[in-house]
C-alpha cells in the first residue's frame, strides 16, 4: 500500500524536475523568503522586550514551536489547497478512479519538497530560542518538546484539510481557508494572553490554537498562565489534535459526497 503512494511521490518529483529552471527558481526564492522571516523575528524582538507578560526570549520559544508545527503541516498537507484546482477542472474524477485514498493521493501528487526548507529554518530558530532561555530539563519536558510540534502540526493539518474541503461546496472559495491556516500561524506566534474577547475565544479555544504552542511552552518554561489555566494543559495538544482530525475527516467525507464534477 505504502509503495503505491511512494511511487506516486517519486513520479511527482520527477515531473517537477522536468522543468529544471522553474524548480531551481522555486528553491532559491523559498530560501530567500526564509531568510527574510528570520530577520523579521529578530527585528521584532529587538524593539519589543516583553509581550503579554512574557519576556522576548520566552515568546521566541513559543513562536518557534508554533512555526515548527506549522511548517511541518505545510510540508505534508499544505498542498491540499490545490483541491480547488482539481475540483474546478474536474481532474478530481481521475483521483476518485484509483484504488487509493483520495486525500492521500492529493497530498502526494502535489508534494512540494522545497517546503522542507521552512522546516529546517523553524528547527534552527527553535534551537536558538531554547539556548537563550533557562529550562530545567526533565524527561517530561523533553517529551513535551518532541510531542508538541508533531501533534501541533496535526492540528494545523486538520485545519488545512477542513478549509480546503470548502471548495466542494463553493469552488470560488478563494483564499478563505488561508484566514484560518496562515491566520492560525500568525496567531500562534504570540502568547494567547496578548489577545482578548471573541477573537481569543475563537482562535485559542474554538480552533484549538492555544494548544499548538502556548500551553506546552508554559509547561516547558515552567511559567504560570497569566490567564489562570492549569499547567498540565500543556499535555492537551495530542487530545486536541485527535479531536481536530476527527472533525476534519468528517468534513472531508461529506465534501467528497458533495463533489459535483464538471460537464462532460
Amino acid at each position, binding site marked *: 500500500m505504502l509503495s503505491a503512494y511512494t511511487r*506516486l511521490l517519486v513520479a511527482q518529483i520527477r*515531473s517537477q524536475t522536468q*522543468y529544471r529552471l522553474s524548480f531551481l527558481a522555486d528553491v532559491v526564492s523559498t530560501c530567500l523568503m526564509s531568510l527574510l522571516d528570520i530577520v523579521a523575528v529578530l527585528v521584532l524582538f529587538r524593539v519589543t522586550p516583553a509581550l503579554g507578560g512574557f519576556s522576548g526570549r520566552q515568546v521566541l520559544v513559543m513562536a518557534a514551536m508554533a512555526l515548527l508545527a506549522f511548517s511541518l503541516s505545510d510540508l505534508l498537507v499544505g498542498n491540499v489547497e490545490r483541491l480547488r484546482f482539481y475540483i474546478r477542472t474536474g481532474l478530481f*474524477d481521475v483521483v476518485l478512479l484509483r484504488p487509493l*485514498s483520495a486525500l492521500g493521493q492529493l497530498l502526494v501528487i502535489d508534494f512540494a519538497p522545497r517546503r522542507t526548507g521552512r522546516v529546517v529554518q523553524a528547527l534552527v530558530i527553535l534551537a536558538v530560542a531554547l539556548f537563550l532561555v533557562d529550562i530545567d530539563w526533565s524527561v517530561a519536558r523533553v517529551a513535551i518538546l518532541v510531542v508538541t510540534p508533531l501533534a501541533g502540526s496535526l492540528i494545523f493539518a486538520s485545519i488545512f484539510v477542513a478549509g480546503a474541503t470548502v471548495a466542494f461546496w463553493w469552488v470560488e472559495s478563494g483564499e478563505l481557508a488561508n484566514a484560518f491556516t496562515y491566520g492560525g500561524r500568525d496567531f500562534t506566534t504570540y502568547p494567547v494572553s496578548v489577545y482578548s474577547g471573541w477573537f481569543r475565544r475563537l482562535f485559542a479555544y474554538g480552533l484549538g490554537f492555544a494548544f499548538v504552542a502556548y500551553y506546552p511552552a508554559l509547561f516547558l518554561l515552567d511559567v504560570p498562565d497569566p490567564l489562570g489555566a492549569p499547567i498540565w494543559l500543556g499535555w492537551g495538544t495530542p487530545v486536541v489534535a485527535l479531536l481536530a482530525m476527527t472533525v476534519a475527516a468528517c468534513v472531508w467525507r461529506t465534501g467528497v*459526497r458533495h463533489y*459535483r464534477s464538471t*460537464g462532460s
Partner: protein
Amino acid sequence: MAIIEAEELRKEFVVWRKVGRLRRQRQVVSAVDGVSLRVEQGETLGYLGPNGAGKSTTLKMFTGVLAPSSGRLRVCGLEPVSRRVQLTRQIGVVFGQRSQLWWDLPLRDSFALLRHVFRIPQAEHAARLAQCRELLGLDEFLDTPVRQLSLGQRMRGELTAALLHGPRVLFLDEPTIGLDVVSKQAVRAFLTQLRDQGEVTVVLTTHDLADIERLCRRLVIIDHGRVVHDGSLEALHARYGSRRRVVVDLDAPWEQVPGLSGAVVEAVEAEGHRVTFSLAEGVTAGHVITQLAGYAALRDISIVEPDIEEVIARLYAASDDARSVASG
C-alpha cells in the same frame, strides 16, 4: 447476474440563477431523472443523447465519482460511492476530456505506475501491455512524454491504461471525440475485438453514430435525463418507421407503374430520370426491382440503408413534443 443494475436513478443539482443584480434564485435541476437499466456481463452498450442529456452524469454515478441523489445502483455487485476503492479495481474508465496518464512522464512510465497503483501482478501486467502494444500500435510513442502525444496517440494510451488491471467493465465517455479518421478506426477496431472476446462489458457514450453502428448491439438513448429508447438498432428503426430506400436511374423519364406493390415513390429528380422509392416493412429490394424492370429500362440501382441520425433527431423531437404537451 447483471453487472450493472440501476433502478430509478436520479441526480439533482442545485443551481443558483441570477435574478437582478445581486439576488439569486435556488433552482433544482434533474440531470438524470429516473434511469432504470440492466446491463449483462459481456454486453456492449451504446449510451446516446444530445448535449446535456445526462450521459456523463450517469457514467459518473456508475463509476463512483458522483453520488446519486436517489435510486438504487449496483455495479459489479457494489454500491459505487461507498465501495469506491473496491470498485475501481473492477472497472476501467476513459473520460475523453480527463487524462489518467502522467502528463510530464513518458507513456511507458504511466503504465508502470499504474501497475503499482492497482497492485497488478507483474506477469498479468506484462501480458496485457504486450497485447495492447500490438493491437493499438503503441511502440512508436511509448517513450514520448504524454504532453507531446497527439490526441489519437493519447487516446490509445488511455485505453491501455484503463485495461491494464483487467477490469470487468469498461466505461468510455466519448472515446472517439476529436480523433482523426485513422485513430478513430484504430480505436474502433480495438473495441470491436474487445467486444468479440466477450470478457469485458463495455458501456460507451458517444456523439458519433458510426461508433454505435460499428460497435453496439444495444442502444440506450436518453433525453432530458430519461431513457427514451432501450433496444437494438433494428428495433429503433422499426419503432420509428424508418425505411430502406431504392434509388433507380432510368433511361426514359419516370411514368407511374400501375399496381406497384411494396414501395411508394418518395422523390422524382433529374427530370424524371432518377426516382427514389421507400420500401414497406418486410419487403425486399429485389421484389421491387423485379417489378420495375418489367416496365422500364434501369440504368443504375442503389439501395440506401436507413439513416440513424435522422431517426434519432426524430426521436428527440418526439420526446420534446411529449414534454411540452405534458407540461403545457
